[in-house]
């Protein structure tokens, strides 16, 4: 551990880290601070302390958050299933290594392409589809969900794949030796142990999708409005306290969900030493 090994340099490193960590959190603090004040525009320092901004959040913000949540949830669900299947197939199945390399590359690719480029290409594709076949994937939201699902598959694949790779296969041997059929072994032993990883991958997928602006930028319209884009537009137009309030609420909610899930998942993962 090197405790005996402390020097001034180590102290400097820790001090540096502290500063960095504070800076990492700073924008959130700024948003919170700027949301609490009087007046419409967010000026610092505020004349009076006030939570007015929180009380006057227009409905459309909640609608937008709801739409984004729905889209991201659907995308994450699809990505979780697909990513898990892929991880299972590649880690457990016996696949020729050339095919395996290709499959892995394909499954990792969505993340490596800049989201903006993906956004453009999806949009172009859907427009062409609409002109050619009449199916408007842009209007019914399906196009958006599919794009987000494809984009987040790599995350689920990585998380579940890593968990599967470290999975102790003798647990399944033991279950079968005790009389469980292969299906039962999967349902009673493999899946419960795998579930935290799947949930974590799904959560990643949800958060990444929820916040993803460039991917959705060209696919929103009058009917479908997504939160990050609305926020973006609001900022470029005029930065009001309401905007800071909405941002703070979402950021805090997200962080809380993440921390709770991590705490729970980590305790389950610690126990599941398989």
């Amino acid at each position, binding site marked *: 551990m090197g405790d005996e090994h402390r020097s001034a340099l180590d102290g400097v490193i820790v001090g540096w880290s502290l500063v960095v960590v504070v800076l990492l959190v700073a924008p959130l603090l700024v948003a919170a601070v700027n949301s609490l004040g009087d007046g419409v525009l967010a000026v610092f320092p505020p004349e009076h302390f006030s939570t007015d901004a929180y009380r006057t959040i227009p409905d459309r913000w909640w609608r937008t958050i709801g739409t984004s949540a729905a889209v991201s949830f659907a995308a994450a669900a699809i990505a979780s299933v697909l990513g898990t299947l892929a991880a299972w197939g590649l880690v457990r199945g016996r696949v020729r290594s050339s095919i395996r390399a290709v499959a892995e590359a394909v499954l990792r690719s969505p993340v490596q392409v800049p989201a903006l480029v993906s956004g453009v290409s*999806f949009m172009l594709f859907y427009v062409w589809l609409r002109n050619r076949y009449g199916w408007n994937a842009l209007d019914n939201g399906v196009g958006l969900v599919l794009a987000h699902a494809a984009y987040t598959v790599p995350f689920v694949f990585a998380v579940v794949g890593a968990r599967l790779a470290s999975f102790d296969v003798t647990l399944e041997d033991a279950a079968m030796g005790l009389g469980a059929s292969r299906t039962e072994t999967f349902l009673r032993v493999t899946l419960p142990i795998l579930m935290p990883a799947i949930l974590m991958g799904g959560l990643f997928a949800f958060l990444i999708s929820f916040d993803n602006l460039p991917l959705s930028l060209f696919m929103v319209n009058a009917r479908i409005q997504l939160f990050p884009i609305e926020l973006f537009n609001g900022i470029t137009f005029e930065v009001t306290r309401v905007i800071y309030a909405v941002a703070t609420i979402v950021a805090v909610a997200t962080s809380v969900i993440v921390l709770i899930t991590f705490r729970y998942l980590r305790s389950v993962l610690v126990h599941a030493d398989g």
Partner: protein
Amino acid sequence: MTSRDGQAVIESAGPRLLVLLPVLFVLATFGLTTAFFVWASFVDARDAAALTLDNYRRVLGDGYNWGVLWSTTKVSLIVVVVTAIISYPLAFAIARNRTWWAQAFLGVVIASCTMSLVIRALGWIGLLDTKGILNTVLLAMGLSERPLRLLGTHTAVVIGLVHGFVPLLTLTLVPILQSINPMLEMAAAGLGAPRWEQLWRVTLPLSLPGLIGGSFLVFAMSMGAYTTPALLGGGRAIVFPELIQQQVHLLRDYSTSAVLSLMLLVLVLLAVGMSSALTRRRLPGLGG
């Protein structure tokens, strides 16, 4: 992973086929759309039925595009260096300490990864604006006579991007630094090296491949970043992805946007390829 012997009483061909479905899905969505926009880049802007190289000649011949690409590259290089300098000590502190505060640092880093880019940028706007918190404090403390004009400059873009990438690079570096045995530093100490030389001559070189690999990744992400530069660059400090967006939204010039996208894609994939080659990070249990 314990391997079962070749007789495979237990395994079947089932799992193998499962992977086909997701791969097909990704190919159908991403593959198709990418192929599509590659095709779109060759489509004649005037006559949708014809294919031409005109788009490429036009875009690649326009000095403005190269100018933006170059300034984006410069920004990205700066971002990479700054991010690496900031992240390394943080990752080191987390990797080498089993204390409660090291865990807290890690928690903040992880939570920070999940923070929305837009909200981050919003926070920085509040901080860096001419009437923002930073300027207010500086003026109040008499450290400056006039407010600093930070928003709308490349500086603000760098700050925003660095803030976004530090958590990612840190999380990449932590396992790498953890895998370097502290005993090596102690050995170096026993041979007479002061603390900074222990790190400089032992730890840093050992972690270098991972650091460089991670940096290539940061470079790729920085080149492709849209949200942060759009918000913090204020329309004046433009990066390449914004160029693409303008073509689509403002000019409705899909062909040009396709060519520009292809340029960006090639660059990014090159950088990602370098990163993979350096880190060679594959999931254990997956061959290759």
